[in-house]
Every structure is written in structure tokens, then in C-alpha cells.
């Protein structure tokens, strides 16, 4: 794996969010190193998903800042953040069910020119056609790598949960963001697919995408991450490589000693 570069992929500083009287995220701060897989773990209700929503623009933070490539992200709309190169997934697979698997992957890349109204209509220009064709073959290739080639004309909504997750991964490969945040990718997925997903994540890194993974499945975290951040009650309580956290008393307390003991 690549050595951590000087500037982190993502910097979160003092992120805070209240819902009514409840503090969901409380002065949360961490850094995700560039070119690595960073895990984000913690018991239920720790605020991990809310933190992801805040980082990716789906919720507005009350205070704090998020720096991506040196640029503050707070207040930006989700699609703007995505266009800057930060893509996230959701706790349940969010494929586009009425579109085919291939269409799902092709549409992962936002194309300003061809998605404007006139561009879409008059996309008869040679350059745009060539782009469309190369995109299509790239999508096929990616689907082949994920073992989804024979499902490419199937409606994505008809796939199993694990297959949908793979489609999501294929979309991420297609979009080639600089940072991808995976929100519980193993949720509801047959553990058999775990290795395939781990390989996919390694492929992300190899192609230049940094990864943050939120997960409850700790063996999976151990398998894929180089650096782990532990959240509890809205803020970061520990960070470091996975092995060091096992013996960290704060982490053990947070999890009530259940899962961390292997």
C-alpha cells in the first residue's frame, strides 16, 4: 500500500450537529490519509452516519469544517461535492432499480456536456459520440471485472442485495472519485462476498481513490483498513491501526467489550 502523503484526503475539524435536543455529532475531528483505506467504527448511535451525511452535504452541520483537497465543503450541495471528487454510498444499496446494470454504471459518471439539454439532443457531434462509445466499453470492462457482465442487461432492481452492492462498487470504479466513503457496505450482504469487496476496495486504492469505510463488521475492517477511527457519542475517542485499538480501554468500554474481543 502507498505511504501516507503529506496532505490528508479528508480533514474533519470540530464537526457538530444537533437534532432537537440531541447532539448527534459532537466536535468530531479526524483525518483520513491519502491513498489509504480508513475505517470508521463505533457502536450504534455513535454518529457515524450523521457524520457522513454532514461531510457529503446531505445534512448541514451546525458548526465545524470539512476540508477536501484543501477546500471547505460545509454548505455545499451534495452534487457539488460529488463533482469535486467525493462520492459516498448509503446504508442500503441505492441502485437505480428501473435502469439496467449497464445503464447504472454508465450513468455513474456525470457528463456536463451531454447531460445539458441541448447537449443531450444534439449529441450527434463526433466527439460526443466517441466519448459515449468509450464510456460504454469502459463500463463493460468494469462489469466484467466485478463478475456482473452476464447481468448487464438485467434491471438493477431485480438483483440480490449483494449483487446490488457490487453494482454500486462498479459505479464507483466508473466514476473514479478521489475519495469514496462507503457506508456499511457489508450490511445485509452474504459474508461470502466479503473477499470480493475487499479486493474491489484494494482496486480503488490502486486506481488512485482514497477510501473511508464505515462498518460494524470488524473482521472486514481488519481486513481492508490501514487506519481506523473510533467514534462514540458523536466524537472521536480513539484512532490508529486496528490491532492497537483492541487493547484500547476506551474503545473496549464503548463497545461494552463484546465485539472487539476476538
Amino acid at each position: 500500500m502507498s505511504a501516507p502523503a503529506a496532505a490528508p484526503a479528508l480533514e474533519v475539524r470540530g464537526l457538530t450537529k444537533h437534532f432537537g435536543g440531541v447532539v448527534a455529532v459532537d466536535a468530531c475531528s479526524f483525518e483520513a490519509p491519502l491513498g489509504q483505506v480508513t475505517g470508521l467504527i463505533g457502536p450504534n448511535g455513535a454518529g457515524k452516519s450523521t457524520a457522513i451525511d454532514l461531510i457529503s452535504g446531505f445534512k448541514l452541520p451546525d458548526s465545524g469544517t470539512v476540508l477536501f483537497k484543501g477546500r471547505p465543503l460545509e454548505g455545499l450541495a451534495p452534487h457539488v461535492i460529488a463533482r469535486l471528487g467525493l462520492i459516498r454510498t448509503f446504508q442500503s444499496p441505492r441502485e437505480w432499480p428501473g435502469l439496467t446494470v449497464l445503464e447504472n454504471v454508465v450513468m455513474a459518471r456525470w457528463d456536463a456536456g451531454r447531460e445539458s439539454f441541448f447537449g443531450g439532443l444534439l449529441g450527434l457531434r463526433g466527439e460526443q459520440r466517441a466519448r459515449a462509445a468509450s464510456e460504454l466499453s469502459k463500463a463493460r470492462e468494469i462489469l466484467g471485472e466485478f463478475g456482473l457482465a452476464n447481468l448487464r442487461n438485467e434491471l438493477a432492481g431485480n438483483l440480490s442485495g449483494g449483487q446490488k452492492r457490487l453494482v454500486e462498487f462498479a459505479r464507483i470504479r466508473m466514476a473514479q472519485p478521489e475519495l469514496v466513503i462507503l457506508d456499511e457496505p457489508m450490511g445485509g450482504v452474504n459474508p461470502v462476498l466479503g473477499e470480493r469487496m475487499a479486493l474491489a476496495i484494494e482496486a480503488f486504492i490502486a486506481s488512485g481513490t482514497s477510501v473511508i469505510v464505515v462498518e460494524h463488521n470488524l473482521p472486514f475492517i481488519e481486513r481492508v483498513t490501514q487506519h481506523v477511527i473510533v467514534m462514540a457519542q458523536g466524537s472521536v475517542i480513539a484512532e490508529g491501526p486496528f490491532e492497537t485499538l483492541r487493547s484500547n480501554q476506551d474503545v473496549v468500554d464503548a463497545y461494552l467489550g463484546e465485539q472487539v474481543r476476538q
Partner: protein
Amino acid sequence: MSAYLISVLTEGAIFGIMALGLNVIWGWSGDFDLAYYGYIAVGAYMTLVLTIGPAQAPAEYILGQQLPYPVAVVIAVVTTMAVGLVVGLIALRHLRGIYFSIVTLGAVYVMYVIAGQFVPLFDGYNGLSGLFDPMGDVFGLDYQSYQYFFLGLSLVMFVIVYAFMARVSSSRFGMALRTLREDERAAAAFGRDIYRLKLKGYVLGAALGGFAGALFAAYLTAFNPSAWSPVEVIVLYSAVLVGGRGNIRGVVLGVLIMGVLVQESTRFLPDLPGLGQLNTDHPQVLLAMRGAIIGLVLVLFLRFRPRGLLPERRFVDRQPAIDVAPRSA
């Protein structure tokens, strides 16, 4: 060809354009817009005030120009797009589902009420009339031939709109709209500006509605509040739903079935005892029967066949593609 057949086909072509426009907003973007008939009305009214010349007292209405029909149509469509933009800006910003529908219902009723009550605009309940045989004098047509001419014109316009919609459907813009319908959050997570994209789709749909309205005005030669009602939009929705939501061929099929078949079949219903000749004595009852049937079909399809008769077309990739073994660590 009998005059009756000519009028049925002409109306069918115009409804076809209306349904194709509605398909953009509901079939592709996925928004249940109840303001749609308002755009048809704006298109019709604007075309009329731009072609029937200055108002003769006691009638009152704005503009009152006598422009050539094609020019009037273009201006009418642009106006309709502006109205659609205003409604869309408000309704699409934060609202989805029934809240969106309710706000658009409100918008169309505001339009309906203003058109009917605010006399200086379009002469209130009297409405506008007098658009006879637009472009007919250019070709020197008599009444009989003009009917054929207008039928031909409507059909040609329908074919053009259809071809255009086919292009949009398979274009990236069309696919982007559909991702919004399928899952907005995912679309945003992959870089789509939901608001802007929906607005574009909405204005496009409104434009087609206005265009159909312009043709409708020439077909009816007049337009007033009793010629339209916001609730008529249900007929269009039935057509789109029954045929196949999102599929333009399905929309055409739906128009044929709902707009033409149902319409015409009610003419041949047996006379109900005590009601006399349905066609002539009780045209309202006839209309009501048609309405009840259409509503019933809508509900039945929603329950048992929500995708409609023709499923949405999808891109089927015929080039060979093979699975590759996943790279190991």
C-alpha cells in the same frame, strides 16, 4: 374520410402531444404534476390573443394582435415555458410526493380562477373566439379542404414531437432525468443537480403542453373556462399510465386506447331506460360516463398494472462482454 373521423384523428394527434409532454414530467422525472392542464390553457389563450385581433367592446382581453399563426404559436410556447418555470421554481425546490402535487394543484386552480374571474385578461367566462382556419388563406383552402390540411398539420407536428421525444429518451439528458425518478439521493451522490435537472424537464413538459394548447385553440377556434378544467388532466394521466409510463410508444398506445377508443365507445352505449337518446338529449351524461370509465381504468391499472401495457424501453447491450476473474491480493 368522414368529418367525424377527421376530427377524431386531429384530436388524437393533439392529445398525443399533450401526453408526450406529460410523460416528461411524470414518466421520466417522476413528479405527479397537477398543473399540466394549465400549460395547455396558457398556450391556447396566448395563441388566441395573438391572432384574433383587437378586442371589440364589450369583450376585453390583453394584447389583441393579429400575428401570423406560426409566430403566435412560438410566442405562446415561450410564454408557457415562463409560467412553467415560475411554478417549477417554487414547487420543485423542496417538495416531493403529495406536497408537490398539492402545490401544483393550487397553481393550476389559481390560473383557472384568474382566467375566469379576471376579465381584462382573457375576457373571463366568455373566453376568446374567432381563430378560423389559421394559415388557410395562405393556401387558399376552402372549409372542406382545410379540415384535411389541419389534420395533416397536426399529424406532422405530432410526428416531429414524437421523434424529438425519442431522441430525448435515449439521450443522456433523458437518462439523467430517469435517475432522478429512480433514486434522487444516489443521483445527487453521483453529481446530478436535482433541482436544475428537474426544472429543465418540467419546462420542457410545459412547453409541449403549451404547444398542444396552441394547436388545440386552432382546432376549437375558441377557448374559455368551460372548455377546460384542471381535473381533465386525469384523462391524460390515464393515457400515460395505461400505455406505459416512461415509454413514448406506450404513451401513444395509451392515447389511442383512452383518448380515442374510450371516447368513441361511449357513443355507442345502449340508451339507458328513461334517458332517451344519450347522444343528443344528454351530452353531459355521455361525458360523465366517459369520465367515470376513465377514472375507473386509471384506478384499476394503478392497482393491477402500474407499469402500463408497454414496459419502459431499456438499453440492451448486444455486444459480447465476459466476466474476468477478480484480481487476487
